[in-house]
């Protein structure tokens, strides 16, 4: 099957305009009889469900949490990018497009990324109109800050809770449609199968997580807005419930999986403290605006950080990347931290951490503040106190969170940080219209692979989720549904629904009947360790080959010895988790297969065999300038389809932040 990305013809900056001007429309009367299923209620799902409801479609929205407001978009901290150029610092749609393409190490589609940059400004307008309380300046206008991989200030934010505020905005829009009757909400429901009829997606099988009952739901189209799969690593910054199940079921039903190995390891997370660790907590990238990252110059230096004098500290990012300094992209910053720790310069009891230090920012802000307040002769202690207040206003909630978790005061001693799994650039392959290889089945937001290439820039996930939901799918779904206006709702006693439900029911019974000895959690932990050690920040051929065998063996053991207490009927979180881990055990293998086949380093994918002498990633554009799109052919069998990436405007070069 040849992949058709359906990128519109014409110059880059008119592709989306032309598409919008020529795509098919559905008239209001017909919209009322067209049903759309939206799975997941994060930024992509909530914004899509609300927008489609407003347009008049009959929407059913599903989430596994107890309320749509809890989707993990809520945890995004730092901000959302938009090419508004409110700071008059030379920003433009093209620059945002270019930064994103370059940040993704030239492994994303030009057409998609340009569209993303184009609609970015509309997102901010929409959110402000909804009442999202972004940070403002004293003049009443919106404030901006910087994020990694850019040299302009284009990030809009609401303290360290930007994701929360944007999601609540979309959630309120969604609840408004629930009240209007255009959206029916199903919380505590998990999608466990896609139903296809005549090759088209026509519904889902969902499990009511409270009663344990299986339900059949019809839709003319199905939208998966189910987020990323970072939890395949067990430890990640994802929420405990974040999972790949919906996307994986779609994959097994014919949706190709794009670039599964492209994983983002975020450089600034609170380090692991022990085997009991259940998740990792991010410290927002926005902290790198003011925090300076360093390790001691001497190996194994056990002095307290505050006792180490300035000249004995190695600010390694500033040393290696003077142009971007502490604001290099995430993949670069993460690898640099790993390099220092592996070389024996790490800090803290585990020695797997580096410092993120605010002392100089506190002093700098304190001096500015003392001048503002007309106290040029303030003492050092007064200056530090004023500086701490400024830093508190900018990052207070993050500092509090750090203090609660570690028991240390980051205003006094530097934070200890280490990279952790945070985001997955890979996902279901979609065309320009966000449709997967299954007609009528769409993937939005982090669940698709489309816009971030091999590395995502900070503050771009929120942008993409909302772009897809508010501004892309409302157009592209019409182009598909316009041809479906004569299709009546298909009753769910159709054999395809019956068969799909039977499949799901058999899978659940199989899991419950294993009655082994080991907990679901223990399998998940073991899978995570394999993935982190062998398919994490550094990957090599030998390790990946071993990982594939180890995962296969672990999967076999899982199906022979997992123990799931409780019953199928009723509320049983262990059973929910077992289904998710079963899918991770398949996905993990595909990720390793993908990482093994890609004999190059690019973005977050670092193959140790492919690096320059100074440790920078070496791409192989002549061989791997393509999207690796995998088709499921049966257990452990995947066929590779390549979608070549043709750069018409940008000229891929070696990415340099020096």
């Amino acid at each position, binding site marked *: 099957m040849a992949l058709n990305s359906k990128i519109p013809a014409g110059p880059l900056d008119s592709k989306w305009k032309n598409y919008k001007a020529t795509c098919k429309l559905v008239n209001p009367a017909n919209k009322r009889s067209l049903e759309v299923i939206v799975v997941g209620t994060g930024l992509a799902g909530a914004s899509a469900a*609300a*927008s489609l409801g*407003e347009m008049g479609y009959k929407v059913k929205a599903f989430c596994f*949490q*107890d*309320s*749509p*407001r*809890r989707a993990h978009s*809520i*945890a995004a901290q730092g901000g959302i990018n938009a090419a508004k150029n409110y700071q008059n610092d030379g920003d433009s749609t093209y620059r945002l497009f270019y930064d994103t393409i370059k940040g993704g190490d030239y492994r994303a589609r030009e057409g998609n990324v340009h569209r993303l940059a184009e609609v970015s400004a509309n997102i*901010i*307008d*929409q959110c*402000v*109109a*909804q*009442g999202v*309380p*972004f*940070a*403002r300046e004293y003049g*009443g*206008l919106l404030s901006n800050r910087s994020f990694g991989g850019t040299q302009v200030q284009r990030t809009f934010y609401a*303290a360290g*809770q930007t*994701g*929360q*505020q944007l999601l*609540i905005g979309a959630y*309120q*829009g969604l*609840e*408004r449609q629930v*009240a209007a009757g255009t959206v029916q*909400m199903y*919380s505590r429901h998990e999608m466990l199968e896609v139903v296809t009829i005549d090759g088209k997606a026509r519904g889902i099988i969902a499990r009511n997580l*409270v009663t344990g009952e299986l339900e059949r739901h019809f839709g003319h189209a199905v939208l998966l807005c189910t987020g990323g799969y970072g939890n395949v690593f067990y430890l990640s910054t994802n*929420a*405990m*419930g974040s999972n790949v199940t919906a996307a994986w079921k779609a994959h097994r039903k014919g949706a190709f999986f794009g670039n599964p190995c492209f994983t983002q390891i975020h450089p600034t997370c609170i380090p692991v403290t*022990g085997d*009991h660790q*259940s*998740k990792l*907590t991010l410290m927002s990238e926005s902290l790198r605006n003011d925090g300076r990252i360093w390790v001691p110059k001497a190996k194994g230096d056990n002095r307290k950080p505050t006792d180490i004098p300035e000249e004995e500290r190695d600010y390694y990012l500033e040393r290696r990347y003077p142009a971007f300094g502490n604001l290099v992209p995430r993949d670069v910053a993460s690898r640099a931290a790993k390099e220092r720790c592996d070389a024996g310069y790490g800090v803290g009891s585990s020695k797997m951490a580096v410092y993120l230090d605010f002392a100089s920012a506190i002093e700098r802000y304190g001096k500015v503040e003392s001048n503002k307040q007309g106290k040029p002769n303030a003492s050092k202690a007064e200056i530090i106190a004023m500086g701490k207040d400024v830093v508190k206003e900018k990052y207070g909630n993050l500092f*509090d*969170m750090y203090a*609660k*978790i570690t*028991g240390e005061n980051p205003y006094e001693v530097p934070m200890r940080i280490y990279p952790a799994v945070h985001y997955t650039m890979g996902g279901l392959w979609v065309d320009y219209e966000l449709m997967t290889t299954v007609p009528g089945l769409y993937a939005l937001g982090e669940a698709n692979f489309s816009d971030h290439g091999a590395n995502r820039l900070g503050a771009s996930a929120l942008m993409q989720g909302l772009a897809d939901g508010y*501004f892309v799918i409302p157009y592209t779904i019409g182009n598909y549904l316009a041809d479906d206006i004569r299709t009546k709702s298909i009753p769910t006693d159709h054999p395809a629904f019956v068969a799909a439900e039977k499949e799901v029911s058999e899978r659940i019974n199989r899991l419950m009947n294993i009655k082994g000895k080991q*907990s679901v*959690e*223990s399998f998940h932990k073991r899978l995570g360790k394999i993935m982190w050690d062998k398919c994490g920040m550094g990957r090599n051929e030998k390790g990946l080959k071993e990982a594939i065998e180890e995962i296969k063996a672990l999967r076999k053991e899982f199906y022979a010895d997992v123990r799931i*207490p409780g019953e199928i009927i*009723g*509320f049983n*979180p*262990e059973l929910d988790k077992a289904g998710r881990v079963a899918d991770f055990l398949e996905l993990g293998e595909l990720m390793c297969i993908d990482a093994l086949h890609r004999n190059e380093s690019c973005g977050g994918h670092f193959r140790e065999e492919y690096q320059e002498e100074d440790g920078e990633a070496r791409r192989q554009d002549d061989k791997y300038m393509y999207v690796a799109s995998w088709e499921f052919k049966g257990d452990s069998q995947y066929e590779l389809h390549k979608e070549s990436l043709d750069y018409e405007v940008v000229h891929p070069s070696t990415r340099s932040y020096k």
Partner: protein
Amino acid sequence: MQHYTMNLTLKVWRQKNSKSQGAFETFQVKDISSEMSFLEMIDVLNEQLVSEGKEPIAFDHDCREGICGMCSMYINGRAHGPWHETTTCQLHMREYKNGDTIVIEPWRASAFPVIKDLAVDRTAFDRIIAAGGYISVNTGNAVDANCLPVEKQQADDAFAAATCIGCGACVAACPNASAMLFVSAKVSHLALLPQGEPERKKRVVNMISQMDTEGFGSCTNIGACEAECPKGISLENIARLNREYIGSMLSGSATGV
């Protein structure tokens, strides 16, 4: 910071479903590290239960970084436990010492029926938001964001109210199981912004009416909600809610919704 391990006695509320009678069950957990989060300690207990072939304790949790609002334990008589402005998931075991007994209950309110053990149904909050906790703006209707300046203090106050995570600790802490702090946070967030102005009067009336329909109690100005709120939502919001409500009722424009 000095780390240590501890053995604890846990008295946990067990309830099969919303219709059955619940009771406390006592468990012992050993070698709990002071570096663990409270929920990681519960994870240890649950692994122990699974290995003994028993059903683990059902509880709600998701982000484990204090922002999703899903975790909801009533610990030794306090919503989210003893730490100020902290969710259950951010409470850490260095709070406890060897030999302590910890009593863990679900949120108790008739508007939040127990689903199982410590998990409760909070969909009443969603229905209150659906009754008016939004600004009616369809996608695509917005003007340029900077066309509408908002005074910084006003914006900051709106933000402070908007940080509510909808966890329900305010209801659990209140002897009347009132949802006033939750409702007031949303009403304040939107009433403080110029965007919220057109629907300001009918919003407050509709949300209060839905709150009553759901069976939440009345506010008698006790202030437990503010004291236990993990996000520090202020009682000032309830005062504002009352002003908004009275203003709306007196102006007579609340009807005709």
